[in-house]
């Protein structure tokens, strides 16, 4: 292939389908109008500062001075992410751990795939300029997704139960004022609008699961990249236990899975952990329920300094925990 042919192939393969040379759509105009209708926060803030009575400023300064001088007011420990799960080694082999799921596939749990899922999740907070932020409190969100065959649906995200980032303090710092269960975001999608990647989960045979994973993550040394697709599937569908077994079988096509042992996940469930190395100096820990044999979670950890986020090695940068919908 010569340079011109490569250039031509690259330019014509742009997967973006939105036309570049057409005028703004009605929706895009509405977005623009909504943005300019809202005065910039920085200006609102400046106006508020001017209007703040002098007495209030004095009071605020006094509070700050007292806070600084108070020797008992220890700052909460800050961390990039939650403390990594601690695993107890198990005599079980990786194959035996995966076989647990297959054993339960025919007799227990979800027997038909259900459109939707409940996901408790957290991810490292990053500022607008791409800088990661440390936190004293991990504040997960809980997202409930329900959708229909016509791709209509609803997604509700609410506040999860916060916990201390250092894994030591049981009492939350006093700024944990938002009650768990408070709705943060609610979206309703009309027919055809729900952004689902896998509209039909019944179409996957065991070999198609393997093909899917290997297409997306062809490097057999990096099963963590394939787990990304598993995470997407499990965030859109509550799959059957047999399908969970098929997914785990598909992951065994990769070479570097490693059994970590047993632990208790962040929702208090007994789990087996399987480590799956991923690209970008990361590792994904897949969590399988000891009770049901189902995949119930995945945690993403930075292993080295090559991660684009620039956080220290060993930092958990995100996790997702699934609960079955029925």
């Amino acid at each position, binding site marked *: 292939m010569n340079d011109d042919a490569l250039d031509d*192939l690259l330019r014509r393969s742009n997967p973006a389908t*939105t036309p570049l040379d057409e005028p703004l759509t009605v929706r895009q105009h509405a977005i623009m109008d909504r943005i300019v209708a809202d005065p910039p926060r920085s200006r609102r803030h400046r106006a508020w500062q001017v209007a703040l009575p002098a007495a209030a400023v004095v009071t605020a300064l006094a509070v700050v001075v007292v806070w600084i001088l108070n020797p008992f007011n220890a700052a909460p420990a800050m961390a990039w992410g939650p403390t990594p799960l601690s695993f107890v080694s198990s005599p079980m082999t990786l194959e035996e751990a995966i076989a647990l799921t297959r054993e339960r596939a025919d007799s227990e749990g979800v027997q038909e795939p259900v459109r939707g899922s409940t996901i408790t999740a957290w991810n490292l907070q990053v500022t607008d300029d791409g800088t990661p932020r440390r936190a004293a409190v991990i504040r997960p969100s809980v997202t409930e997704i329900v959708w229909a065959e016509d791709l209509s649906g609803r997604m509700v995200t609410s506040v999860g139960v916060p916990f201390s980032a250092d894994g030591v303090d049981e009492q939350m710092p006093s700024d944990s004022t938002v009650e768990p269960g408070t709705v943060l975001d609610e979206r309703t999608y009309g027919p055809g609008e729900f952004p689902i990647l896998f509209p039909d989960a019944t179409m996957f045979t065991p070999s198609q699961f393997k093909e899917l994973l290997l297409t997306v993550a062809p490097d057999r040394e990096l099963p963590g990249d394939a787990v990304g697709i598993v995470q997407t599937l499990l965030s859109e569908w509550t799959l059957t236990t047999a399908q969970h077994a098929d997914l785990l079988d598909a992951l065994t096509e990769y070479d570097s899975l490693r059994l970590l042992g047993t632990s208790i996940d962040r929702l208090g469930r007994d789990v087996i952990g399987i480590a799956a190395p991923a690209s970008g100096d990361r590792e994904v820990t897949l969590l399988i329920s000891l009770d049901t044999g189902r995949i119930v979670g995945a945690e993403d950890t930075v292993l080295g300094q090559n991660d684009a986020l620039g956080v220290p090695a060993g930092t958990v940068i995100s996790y997702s925990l699934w609960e079955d919908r029925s």
Partner: protein
Amino acid sequence: MNTNPTGAESALRESVFRAMFEQNFVRVVRYVQRQVADRATAEDIAADVFRIAWEKLEPADPFGVPWLIRTAMHRTRDHQRRQYRGTAALTAIARRIDEQPAELEHLDRFALYAALQKLSPKDQEIVQLTYWDGLSAGEVASVLRMRQGAVWTRLHRARAHLRTSLDDSMAEGVNGERRRTR
């Protein structure tokens, strides 16, 4: 004569923003759309980018494409971590392949996307910003906070890798076809 400088300033600000939006919104949507599931989500993320631009805009020095794309890059990554937890861009691409007009053979596209996956994430970004977003080497350098010379070097090397990978996959395809027809 307008004696209200705040009103005039606001009007200028809005006018500059609207021009920036009309000129660049679709470019940002196209950048995001490569990595997320659908156009509506891409427009939502692009809207976030322009909301930030609206907050920070200085009318005398409006944001250019590199700043918008760089902000979109961060917002998209944040969205992926929040919504899909690291879904590979290839999935979104693979799903959209069937929606596209048949300008190219699917196998050519898959071969190209597979070849792109073999590049380092930074080289992939350089190639895509250059060919799919139409950015100059200087603009790519601004987006990725690199030196322009390094962009040229890496682009040259990435194209060589892509050519090799595509030649290999074409050879495999031909051999595979031979094997099947035997």
